[in-house]
């Protein structure tokens, strides 16, 4: 497992951030997901070979649940 950190922008409020976090936790190939509204960090753990699939899944969940939010970079 490797730790990844992404910048997540455009989150409306802290509550939305924690809701989005609980949706992301349901993705099976990533672990220990946390979103910090204050630092705008999305942190998760994932096997290195799965990272591309994981990113796709994360982006899909964000598009569905919080379309105003987006991963930067």
């Amino acid at each position: 497992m490797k730790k990844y950190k992404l910048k997540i922008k455009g989150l409306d409020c802290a509550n939305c951030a924690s809701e989005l976090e609980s949706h992301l936790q349901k993705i099976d190939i990533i672990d220990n997901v946390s979103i910090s509204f204050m630092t705008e960090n999305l942190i998760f753990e994932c096997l290195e070979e799965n990272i591309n699939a994981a990113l796709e899944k994360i982006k899909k969940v964000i598009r569905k649940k919080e379309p105003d939010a987006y991963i930067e970079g």
Partner: protein
Amino acid sequence: MNKNMQKSLIKIIIALILFVITSVINFNNHLINNIIFIISYIIVGYSVILKAVKNILRGKVFDENFLMTIATIGAFCISEFPEAVAVMLFYQVGEWFQSYAVDKSRKSIASLMDIRPDYANVCREEIIKVSPEEVDVDEVILIRPGEKIPLDGIVTKGTSTLNTLALTGEAIPKRVKEGDEVLSGSINNDGILKVKVTKVFTESTVSKILDLVENASSRRSKSENFISKFAKYYTPIVVVIAIMLAIIPPLLIENATFSDWLYRALSFLVVSCPCALVISIPLSFFGGIGAASKIGALVKGSNYLEALSQTETIVCDKTGTLTEGVFKVGKIEAIGYSEAELLRYAAYAENHSNHPISISIKEAYNKKIDEKLVTNTKEISGKGLISQVNKHTVLIGNEKLMNEYKITFTKNQGIGTIIYIAIDNKFAGTITIADEIKKDAYKAINLFKENGIKKIVMLTGDKENISKEVADKLGIDEYHAELLPQDKVTETEKLMRKKAPNSKLVFIGDGINDAPVLALSDIGVAMGGLGSDAAIEAADVVIMTDEPSKLATAIKISRKTMKIVKQNIIFAISVKIIVLMLSAFGLATMWAAVFADVGVSVLAILNALRILRIKNIE
């Protein structure tokens, strides 16, 4: 202020002007008044309505946009035109102010941690500016005055003073010269330095610290978990009550009008968003962690900050934590010679030795040694050495050495390591070498006591009499001496069992051989974190300098943080409950409801931001 915020500010102002004009001037015509109200409502509220519709299509019902839309449209339906506009208007004002406050606190917290270097001047064919990630180990970088040191390395050319304030919270500049190690994140004050890089950026000190602090918010405290749980149930419950409030009383109570109860129900909807809590609690912890890192105490998670506030027992390691961990010449007792003469003989005799004790004697002598005068130095393993100094035979070592050479001597009962010296086979006196207590240790113990720490315990592998002296001088109630590393673990286990439930045990050590105890205690604190990877890894709190008093300051910050957290929880929940009750009985207007929603958020955020203003907490 970003573009989005500017735009919404303009909208708010236009809508506000229309709203005020209509309310004050009153066009004496209901139709015109209402049309203007609707126009200002649309200007300020269409984005909320749009979002609400989008969210419903995605199956997200209980979101605040939806609740606001329902509440205001409901108000229009019962002909409360000004109320509808006002609710939307003040909701937007509150939201705007909230994002302004969040933005501002993000920036001020970011500036607390503003140690990330933007570039490195690397010397390849010529000096070029690159991002620090692109520099390899063994490359040479140039740092001009005023620039941040981008990567850890060793000075190869130049001298300067470094400002390590951002790393250690320490204002005293550090002098560096050729051969010295420099850490990324410090600022070069005056000279030009050439530095050979020893670590790539991701492994440099600055990256490690940033990582540690930024990841801290992912380890949540109990308070934060409580709030997320609360938020999960609060909104649906309030919404369900609102629906019942609109339907049941008009059916059951005589003379009850539907519009009156609908108004009360709509007020409920306005109060139903838990945002004030959900935002202000993590913000408080984040601020607390930021404030602690500013004084050079890195807390690895909100949970540890929360735990620090419940500290009851502090267990300290002795050597290197409360004492300097370096040997220093203390008392000199000379017989038949002056103290200076004895020290001179000792320093000359020890000239060729690199034993820590020899070094401390030479340091105390602090004059140039004429090497020609020292001959025939012979080390006697485990006992000391014998040297010819200016045609005199000097014996220097422990009691065993004196016994071996059959020197008559008086035993010195002092505290510390005693060095016996004989000159020309005659006892000449003793030098006591002691590990000095840090000045900061006195301050630390006093601050611990002032902050209501009930029990301070010192654990050490050192001799009983030395430990007693240190404990007495510092005023430590309990100490255990002559412990092997595994004994430290057993002692800590005992203390863990003895403490009150819900209180916490903190262990503070210099990070050397402490890993099992660091892991065992509720909160492990490693000191002198700069440069020691193992300590940063094992500890929950890392103190960047070698001052134990920083732990006291960190505890103070944690208590202040928890106080603000509790204030916010109680304030937000009670205002909401009071307003809910009042509106259920028809005593509160929708205005009060708006205050209970966004007003409380803003106040809670402002309260949380007070943590960042802790400046001279000591």
